């Protein structure tokens, strides 16, 4: 048996405790143990961005971290973007509205990267949007609608204030 390491991670606002082997990647723990399957696994070596999550508020690739490294940290997955009443967030709704997704494989990573951008830069330029999602590959949309969706979300969030 591989040695197990105790961890406690705040995932989407809830403290989650577990025993994990050192080599278990963070994304595999989130998906296979916590059943948070919104986060997708693409390339498993840090190229595609499908597994992006927020670690302590900043987007990182969860295939490039071991779950044991997240001990004591705060993780936000795409499930954590929902509003408190379970409705889609403004950003998620804007992706639907602007046709920012087709097959949906890259979408969780796109949402995490875009949300992290909007959290720090409420009114981003197109260049800033493209930079923020530069590490997320999409093979369907050609990116145009995704950029439009983030712009739309920024407008809607500004109008709400």
């Amino acid at each position: 048996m591989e040695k197990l390491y105790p961890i406690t991670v705040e995932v989407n606002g809830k403290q989650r405790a577990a025993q994990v082997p050192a080599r278990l990647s963070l994304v595999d723990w989130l998906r296979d143990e916590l059943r948070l399957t919104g986060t997708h696994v693409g390339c498993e070596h840090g190229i595609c961005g499908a597994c992006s999550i927020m670690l302590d508020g900043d987007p990182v690739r969860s295939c490039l971290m071991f779950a044991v490294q997240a001990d004591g940290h705060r993780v936000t997955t795409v499930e954590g973007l929902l509003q408190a009443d379970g409705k889609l967030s403004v950003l998620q709704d804007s992706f639907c509205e602007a046709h920012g997704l087709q097959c949906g494989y890259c979408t969780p990573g796109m949402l995490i990267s875009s949300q992290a951008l909007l959290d720090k830069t409420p009114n981003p330029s197109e260049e800033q949007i493209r930079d923020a999602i530069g590490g997320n590959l999409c093979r369907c949309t050609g990116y145009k609608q995704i950029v439009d969706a983030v712009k739309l979300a920024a407008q809607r969030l500004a109008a709400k204030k």
Partner: protein
Amino acid sequence: MKSAAFEYARASSIAEVCDWLRKGGDETKLIAGGQSLVPMMAMRLTRPARLVDINEIAALKFVALEKDYARIGACTRQCVVAADNALAKQVPLIRQALSWVGHSQTRNRGTVGGSLVHADPAAELPLAAQVLDAQLLLRSHAGSRIVGAAEFFEGPLATVTRADECLEEIRWPVWTEKRSGSAFTEVSRRHGDFALVAAAAQIALDADGRCTRAAFGLAGGGSIPMAFPALAAQLVGSTLDDDAINSVTHDAATALDPGGDLHASPGYRKQLAAVLAARMLRAARDEALKQ
């Protein structure tokens, strides 16, 4: 695409890291941001028996500006360094290099020291370190030593760091001349990829616009990033006209021994090297002329 099994230890101090390395340096690998190490482990290109995690060591995360050096802790995140305006004023080449490194998700996790000890021949930060001859502070249980970038890089993914040593901090020389400028560029298939060729330069000028100090280098043209101090010295005293610049960058490109692959032939890489190095020397000169 899953790592082989390993033991894990989270170190809370530099002394603890040195202790782990003394006990089993050959089988122990330090993990900082993990943005290069974890893919290599996933592909089973490396299978360390033990990972010692240095991410929680506060003493390895700092940017300290001194008169002659900007000191950066080895485990300082690339995003933190890139956002540091005071540092960008003192050593602008670091931010210029970081703007080409990976993506926001990898810079949020990746560290400055990790990039240097990983020593990818086409990586940006090792090139910046070579051009400025950054000084690297290596620590072991037995003590510490300082190695200049010129001696630090040995080959692809190989440095002079011994199995019982860790990188503690990097000291980036500050150019105190009133008129100085720097520039960094690269050509890659997509922004954020490793460079086919990267070029960096830094220039200081006197009041008449004559060069008083010059440094430039190239990455992607061989097994390590290279600086060309002897060629750069030929620029001192000139006004950095096109002839002076083209002559040294031609010689630099000729000295390279780039490999060829499906992305670019050796000849194309050499051509790029000469063009990009000249372009960066001119850009650094123009930056210095504005001051």
